[in-house]
């Protein structure tokens, strides 16, 4: 087992890939055989694919607060007249799709949580054709993301109630960035830099859900988290390094999470959750 990102990177050099290391460790920890572990991950991949497709068709949440934006984004991409690049916009569209499906009580794969489920599925579905990834390579992508995610989770947090949104969408974006680097042929070290770069920019992000619902601003934070994962991966692949070592950044996120007041940790008592409009919406939805 690896405990830190540095451990993970070092141990991965003794294996054909980070995915192989992760599957070996999983087999040791759970007693499941490797084929079973791969097939379980394939089920997760299929759930992600379905949620992206469903969201792009256009859905509406139970409360009506979110929905339809993935479809809007899809139309915008189809029109072909945009500012940034197509892969990023597709990742954004896909991430919105997954979290819109989540908000309407549809089926999603939590990565690492339900509220941050859009980022990883979003970037994977945006790059898999461009990178000509086979199904096995897509499953590997999820093991790589999960491996880096474990190292983050065990040294910091992945729960908004514990560490704010930095712990959820921040961790999701960081592990997505690392998996993107590996999928594009970058090194494990570069994947580590991508995590450090992402988390430094996400640091301090609060969890302030309007009416306590996993909708506003969660859906859009997933969208922008996916775009950031793509940019961080490109920066690391360009050879840009992080001055602060990745594990020190992860630990800084843990400390920031502890120091963060509880009004910013999934209690809906601060941030955009206490704006006049948010309070009005809360009253409309719950009638109290």
């Amino acid at each position, binding site marked *: 087992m690896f405990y830190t990102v540095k451990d993970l990177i070092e141990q991965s050099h003794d294996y054909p890939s980070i995915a192989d290391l992760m599957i070996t460790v999983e087999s040791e920890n*759970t007693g499941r055989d490797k084929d079973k572990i791969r097939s379980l991950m394939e089920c997760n991949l299929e759930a992600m694919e379905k949620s992206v497709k469903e969201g792009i068709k256009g859905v509406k949440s*139970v409360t009506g607060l979110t929905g339809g934006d993935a479809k809007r984004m899809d139309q915008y991409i189809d029109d072909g007249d945009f500012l940034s690049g197509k892969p990023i916009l597709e990742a954004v569209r896909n991430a919105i799709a997954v979290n819109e499906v989540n908000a309407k*009580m549809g089926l999603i794969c*939590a990565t*690492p949580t339900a*509220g941050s489920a859009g980022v*990883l599925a979003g970037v994977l579905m945006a790059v898999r054709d461009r990178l000509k990834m086979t199904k096995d390579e897509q499953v590997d992508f999820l093991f790589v993301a*999960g491996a880096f995610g474990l190292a983050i989770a065990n040294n910091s947090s992945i729960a908004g109630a514990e560490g704010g949104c930095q712990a959820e969408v921040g961790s999701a974006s960081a592990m997505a960035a690392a998996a993107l680097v590996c999928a594009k042929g970058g090194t494990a070290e570069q994947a580590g830099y991508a995590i450090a770069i992402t988390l430094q920019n996400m640091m301090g992000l609060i969890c302030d859900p309007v009416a306590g*619902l996993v909708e506003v601003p969660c859906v859009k934070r997933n969208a922008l988290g996916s775009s950031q994962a793509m940019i961080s991966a490109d920066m690391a692949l360009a050879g840009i390094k992080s001055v602060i070592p990745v594990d020190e950044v992860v630990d800084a996120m843990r400390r920031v999470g502890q120091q963060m007041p509880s009004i910013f940790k999934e209690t809906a008592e601060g941030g955009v959750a206490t704006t006049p409009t948010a309070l009005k919406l809360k009253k409309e939805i719950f009638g109290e």
Partner: protein
Amino acid sequence: MKDLRFNSVFDIIGPVMVGPSSSHTAGAARIGKVVRSIFGEEPEKITIDLYESFAKTYRGHGTDVAIVGGLLGMKPDNDRLSDSLKIAYDKGIKVAFVPKSDKVDHPNTTKITMTKGDHSLTVTGVSIGGGNIQISEINGFKISLSMGTPTYITIQQDVAGMIAQVTDIFYDRDINIGTMTVTRESKGEKSIMIIEVDDRKDHEEILKQLKEIKNIENTTFFE
């Protein structure tokens, strides 16, 4: 090995679940599913008491829908979960939600009572985060069931020799029983066994063997 909070890649990638919240939706559905397994049959009437955070946010997070889905036997990844209230209504099952203002030990707590004819069961469940749950009380009897370890639940007639027959099956396969809870409605009626074991191996065969035992009405395995 160090004591880590997360040991499995599937703690990070997964579970596949119906949204929007792992604690308020997936955990709630799991509680419902466990309660249904302990009850062993489809109820006519369900009363769901909700406490603290569950009481305040159950509608927005779909906690109500998720618990009822679980009580109908659905898992957290069942895509019919969001239709559960309608399905229960169509089946003629009476469902009542009762938000409570009492203080309890954990913010996400629910106390569920199921009834069919004379058969009645009350179970208290807690959603502790990330889709993980605990069962803290059955029919007023305090227990602590984490559901994080492989667990078998059996419902049987309350007659002599049942425990010995069941534990023999685990002994024969060299599977250690970690904890075991046995309780009953009243003498000679139905009894419940909840068995937490150290090894998930052979669970399909074990379920089959348990079902073959005379007087066992229902068995379930949770991983």
